[in-house]
């Protein structure tokens, strides 16, 4: 705890990628919502979008917490 270098740079990088992904989707929200509401094969697009965002934003959240020093205290089973 504490002695490792904090991944601030990576947090910023993933933050920018995440923000860009959110902006891209919300600036085109009408097209996205209309198409995703069609159902059927578009269900794959819904699930893929959720997966991609969870990867990008999940990575950002991970580095952000590490940069803020919010890290696990102990590893292994209790």
């Amino acid at each position, binding site marked *: 705890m504490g002695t490792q270098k904090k991944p601030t740079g990576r947090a910023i990088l993933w933050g920018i990628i995440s923000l860009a992904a959110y902006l891209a989707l919300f600036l085109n929200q009408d097209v*996205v919502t209309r198409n995703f509401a069609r159902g*059927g094969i578009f269900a794959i697009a819904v699930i893929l979008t959720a997966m991609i965002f969870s990867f990008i*934003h999940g990575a950002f959240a991970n580095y952000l917490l590490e940069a803020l020093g919010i890290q696990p*205290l102990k590893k292994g089973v209790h």
Partner: protein
Amino acid sequence: MRGRKAVLWSLVALGTLFLISIPSLAEAAGEALGPGDVVKQFVRLDALGAIYLIILGFLGGLISGFIGSGGAFVLTPGMMSLGAPAAIAVASNMCHKFPKSMVGAYKRYKYGQLDLKLGVFMAISAVIGVQLGIYVQKFIFARWGSAGSNLYVSVAFVLILTLVGLYMLYDARRAVRASTKDTVSGLAEKMKRINIPPMISFNAARIRVSFWVIAPLGLATGLLAATIAVGGFIGVPGMIYILGVSPIMASATELVVAFLMGLTGTITWAVSGFVDIRMVLLLLAGSLIGVQVGAVGTTYVREYMIKLVMATIMLIVSISRGIAIPTYLHELGLIELNQGTVNLLDKASFIIMCFALALGGVIVLGNMWKRKKELQAEEAGMAVNLQKS
């Protein structure tokens, strides 16, 4: 070798039933949806609505990362309060649940807190249990309509959550008083003595129990997920008190159940086009951070804290659901209430649910903060001692 074959066959049997169950999973959200609720209409989201969803997502994620479940009870009504029709809110909650649980499960797996094999057994039998729950729900809906169904859900909710919540609270207090990490469940010790094959060993959870103990527990979790929308509030206590799994391991394993139920539920809702991806992504913006903070939080606290947080949330949520009961009695024509009272009860119920979530968040973050301060003080003390010597 024979034991391994038996385990394999029991998984194949469960898997087949699981596949049969998928088509009806869309209804696995607990809310009794009448034909009028299934409206495909997407709300306009403003900045305030977006911030509201991000905060709600963060709190839901925090609780979910810490106790393995929770959030759905407030996220679905939360989205409906923005004007989303019930079906859209239920579908979007399902779609938000699986990535959040996946990230939470991955984190807790890395901390060595997850038994994947137990999670798979529990998840598959829970998905089948959902099917049973839907039958119960449909029967009540056909017989007593929407208000009757809501009344049944609320009464079951209040009874089950109050009983389990009170027991968990009593149990957590017992651990606090005895100054131990956690208590041992007598019922689980008895269950371990049931020797009906196939017996299955779960190495990470350090238990060996009969398939015939796990499968009914998973079924019950799914049944309650489909009827009262909070399967985790039964799954986690069930794993602790019936299987004898530690609270940390049980809450982490529940995330696997949430992932599989969320994914299969999403597939069915998304095929009909009911998922509002914008609300899903706004919830995820908060919850992917929250779920990781919650997961980290489990490494800061003693085992009984998980029981304490879970019991507190369960009891407050059951009060909130209890407040809604007079409205359903009014709709059924059993009591008389004016519209003002109905609206007031409705608002009070939602605010209390939000309070449950917020209080859970404060307990988790507060305990993390306290522990961190203690550790810093210890480190400082040690440094002073070293300098002296």
